């Protein structure tokens, strides 16, 4: 039986009773050491290791559910110690092995489906508030990690405050880029026609929009994002506004002449292909 494996002599059979796939060799050895030295304390530590992975794995294997739910249920350290003491026959042999196995497996069904159980780690506060608090903190740190990957140049930052500043700067710079680009597009646009249908149905070839004289304008320093530098957007914006408005006037003159030369512009396939957009990185980022 599973419970008997916890006997002092059955230290080698611990691996069979518990979910074998989850516990590594080190943990097993640690558990063997447990029953020789300090049994209860380090066992709870080992149980805390592969906590949530065991939920998924042990949920399938019905035979192994007898013992592993102990490590899955949300409980405090004191409760675990009490349960362990019940299991360890040398300490408390009041309950029979089958009874313990039954009451273990009964509790197993609902909790594993309802929500993720959090196990109070050793040496930390164990009331429900701090457990929830810890879950929340872990969620936040997980999201910060995702953001760290998103924001360029933030792989080395360790610290929420600095990371937040970086994120804020990045979002601001992106928003400024949108404004800047929308101005550019407004200047460019009267001659552009997009054929949306063909755009999305087949590989498109590039037409020839007749826009002239715009290339010198767009050599203005593009707002990119190097590290934590704030972009002096007002200067750039003011400069381009004056330039673009003059260009727009020139465009109006060209309009009548270029009307006949305007063709349908199809967006090049690199905009809508699978691998994302082809970006000239020094400019944008």
């Amino acid at each position, binding site marked *: 039986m599973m419970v008997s494996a916890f006997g002092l002599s059955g230290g080698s059979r611990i691996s069979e009773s518990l979910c074998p796939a989850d516990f590594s060799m080190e943990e097993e050895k640690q558990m063997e050491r447990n029953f020789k030295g300090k049994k209860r304390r380090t066992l709870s530590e080992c149980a805390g290791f592969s906590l949530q992975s065991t939920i998924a794995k042990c949920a399938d294997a019905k035979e192994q559910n007898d013992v592993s739910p102990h490590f899955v249920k949300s409980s405090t350290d004191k409760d675990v110690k009490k349960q362990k003491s019940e299991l360890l026959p040398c300490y408390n042999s009041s309950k029979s092995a089958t009874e313990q196995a039954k009451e273990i497996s009964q509790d197993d069904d609902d909790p594993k489906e309802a929500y993720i159980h959090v196990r109070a780690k050793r040496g930390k506060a164990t009331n429900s508030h701090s457990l929830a608090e810890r879950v929340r903190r872990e969620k936040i740190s997980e999201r910060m990690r995702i953001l760290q990957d*998103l924001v360029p140049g933030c792989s080395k930052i360790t610290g929420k405050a600095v990371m937040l500043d970086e*994120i804020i700067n990045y979002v601001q710079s*992106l928003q400024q880029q949108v404004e800047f680009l929308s101005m*550019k597009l407004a*200047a460019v646009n009267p001659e*552009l026609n*997009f054929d949306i249908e063909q755009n999305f149905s087949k590989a498109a070839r590039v037409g020839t929009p007749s826009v002239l004289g715009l290339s010198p304008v767009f050599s203005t320093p593009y707002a990119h994002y190097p590290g934590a530098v704030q972009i002096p957007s007002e200067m750039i914006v003011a400069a381009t506004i004056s330039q673009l408005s003059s260009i727009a006037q020139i465009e109006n003159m060209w309009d009548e002449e270029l009307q006949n030369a305007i063709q349908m512009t199809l967006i090049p396939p690199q905009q809508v292909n699978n691998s994302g*957009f082809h970006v000239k990185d020094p400019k944008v980022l």
Partner: protein
Amino acid sequence: MNSKKKRTLANPNPRNPMQAFHFLRSLSRINLSTAPFHKRCRAIRRAAYASMARSASPNRAWSHAVLYQLHRRRRRPVPVQARCKTHQNDALRRLLPGGEAMDTCRLLEETIDYVQRLRTQVKLMQEIVDSVKDDAVHEEKRQKEEN
């Protein structure tokens, strides 16, 4: 900004096509209109944010806030009540549309989504500008060779 919802063809990159599609549609419509420059600017900017918000999954709070702002033509929603924490997350809340009344956890989720879409929007607009610029350069060269 009342473009019809249209199902795009199957594409392995699910988010980008819808965003690009909405934006390009609005852009073409803006092109055809004969508004002055600054109005077109603002219209394009609104189209950019609208395309971002429309292609967002519906449980994103920021998309609703953006669309609400654009629809009502209001510059900033003015929520003074829902000031949960007045410390580090403040600036981020102000940046994110609709970020005032959210707890930290959700705020970070929304910024992740927002940043992703902003990035694709910027890339998209940059691509358009680049393609136009390249074509302009080619056009110039061709005309010079002709002359």
